C-alpha cells in the first residue's frame, strides 16, 4: 500500500471498483493486444452486469480500450469517441462460471493479427487482476512491468528467458508457469522490477519454441 492509495487516486467517478477498475482492465487489454483494436466483444458477469450501467462500467471499459486513463473526463463520452475512431464493440452479459463478482471477458480483434481473449476482474479499490489469457489461466495485476511468453512446453525455455533477463540486469519479482497439457502450449508470466528493453523483446520473439511474446510496460 502507498499513501496515494489512501488519498487518491484521481479518478472519474463513481466507483473505484466499477469505474476506475473497468478503465484499467480496458487499458491493460489494449496494451496486451498490442495492435489497433478493430472489434471488441465485451461480456460482463456478476455485479458488473447487475450494476454496470449505473456505474458507467460499460463506458469505462470502452474508454480503457481506447487508451484513456482513469481520470480522463472523456470517459462518459467513450461510446461516441469509439465510433469516431472506428472501433466496433458489442456489450452483453455472460455466465463466466465461478469467478469474482466483478469479472469481464474481452475479445479483441484486428484483421491482421491473432485475436486476444482476456478474462479479468476488478478486485476493489481500483486494483485489478488478469485471470485468463487465450483460455490459459494466469494471475497478474499489471502494476509491474509484466512479460508474458507463450512457448512450446519443452525443457529449457524458462532458463533461456530468465537468463536473458538476468543478463540485462532485469530483476524478477514473481514468476508463474502454466500449461494446458504436457508437451503442449505453455505460458510464463514474469513480473519485473525494471522495464525490459525493446531489443530483448525482439530477440525473444525470434527464439526457437517461443510462440508469442506479450509485454506490458508501465511506460507510455
Amino acid at each position: 500500500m502507498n499513501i496515494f492509495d489512501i488519498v487518491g487516486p484521481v479518478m472519474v467517478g463513481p466507483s473505484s471498483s466499477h469505474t476506475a477498475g473497468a478503465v484499467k482492465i480496458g487499458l491493460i487489454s489494449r496494451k496486451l493486444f498490442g495492435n489497433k483494436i478493430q472489434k471488441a466483444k465485451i461480456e460482463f458477469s456478476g455485479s458488473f452486469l447487475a450494476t454496470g450501467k449505473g456505474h458507467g462500467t460499460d463506458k469505462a471499459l470502452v474508454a480503457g480500450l481506447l487508451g484513456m486513463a482513469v481520470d480522463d473526463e472523456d470517459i462518459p463520452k467513450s461510446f461516441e469517441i469509439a465510433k469516431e475512431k472506428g472501433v466496433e464493440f458489442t456489450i452483453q452479459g455472460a455466465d463466466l462460471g465461478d469467478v469474482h463478482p466483478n469479472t469481464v471477458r474481452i475479445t479483441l480483434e484486428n484483421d491482421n493479427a491473432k485475436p486476444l481473449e482476456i478474462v479479468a476482474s476488478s478486485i476493489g479499490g481500483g486494483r485489478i487482476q488478469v485471470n485468463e489469457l487465450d483460455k490459459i489461466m494466469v494471475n497478474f495485476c499489471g502494476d509491474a512491468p509484466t512479460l508474458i511468453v507463450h512457448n512450446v512446453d519443452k525443457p529449457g525455455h524458462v532458463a533461456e528467458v530468465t537468463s536473458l533477463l538476468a543478463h540485462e540486469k532485469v530483476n524478477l519479482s514473481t514468476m508463474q508457469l502454466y500449461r494446458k497439457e504436457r508437451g503442449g502450449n505453455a505460458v510464463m508470466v514474469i513480473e519485473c522490477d525494471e522495464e525490459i528493453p525493446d531489443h530483448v523483446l525482439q530477440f525473444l520473439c525470434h527464439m526457437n519454441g517461443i510462440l508469442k511474446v506479450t509485454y506490458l510496460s508501465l511506460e507510455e
Partner: protein
Amino acid sequence: MFESLEEIISIEKEKNISFWECIIEDDCKENDISREKAFEKMANMYKVMKQADANYDDKLYSQSGLVGTDGKKIHDARERGELLCGDFIGRVIERAIKMAESNACMKRIVAAPTAGSCGVMPAVFITIQEEKGYSDEEMTKAMYVAAGIGEVIANRAFLAGAAGGCQAEIGSASSMAAGALCFLRGGDGTMIAHAAALAMKSVLGLACDPVAGLVEVPCVKRNVMGAVNAMTASDMAFSGIQSKIPPDEVFDAMRTIGRNMPDDIKETGKGGLAGTPTGIKIKEQIAL
C-alpha cells in the same frame, strides 16, 4: 507503514518533528521517492480537489437519474441566509453534496479514501482554508495528516464498504478530516488522534446499503454527515475533550463491527435502504 496512531505520536515526540513529517518520512522511505517529489504530488491532490469543487455542474444528473442538482438547492438556500447551520457550516454541507454528486455524474474526483466518500475531505479542507486563510503548503501538510490516519485505519481495519460497511468509508473520511482540522489549528499528535477517534466513534456500525448498488443513495448525503461530523469532532478535541477509548482501540472496534456485519449491508445492494420496497423498485427500473 504505521500500524497505530500511538506509534506516530511516539515518533513525533522522540524525533521532535510534526505529525505530518512522520507520515511523509515513512512514505518516502517505503516508496523510495524524494520528499520534494512526494510533497508536490500531495499538493497536486489538493489542487485537483479544488478544481473538482469548482467544476461542479448544477444541471447534471447521474446516469440513473437518482442524484444531481441538490448542490444547487443548498447553495441557493445558503445564499438566502436560510440555513440553521449558518454560512460556514452551510458551505461545508454544500461542498460535500457537490463533490459526491460530481462523482455520481462521472466527473473527476480524488478518492479520499474512496470514491464514495470523496466529498468529506474537500468539503472540510477547502472551506476551512477559505475561512482561515491557510496557505496551500499548510493544507498539503494537513493532507498528509489525513493520509496518515487513513493508513492506520487501513492497517487496523478497512476502508472499503464491501469489507466493513459505510463506517469504513464515510467513517474513515470523517476521522481523517477531523484529525487534519486539529493539525491546522495547531494541535499535536494526541489531539489529532482524539479528534480522529471522536469522529469515528459517532459513526460506528453505519451500514453500506446503496440503492441498486449504486454510489448514489444514500452515499451523496452521507458525505455531508461525514464532513459536519469532522467539524464537531475537531471542536471537541480542540476544547480538550478526549475519547475515553484510546483512538487505536476505536479503529479496532470498527474492524470488529465490520467483520460481524451481515453481508447484505456491506455494499451488496441487498439490505438496509436498498432492501426497502422503494429501493427494490428503483433497482428494477434501472437494470442494464
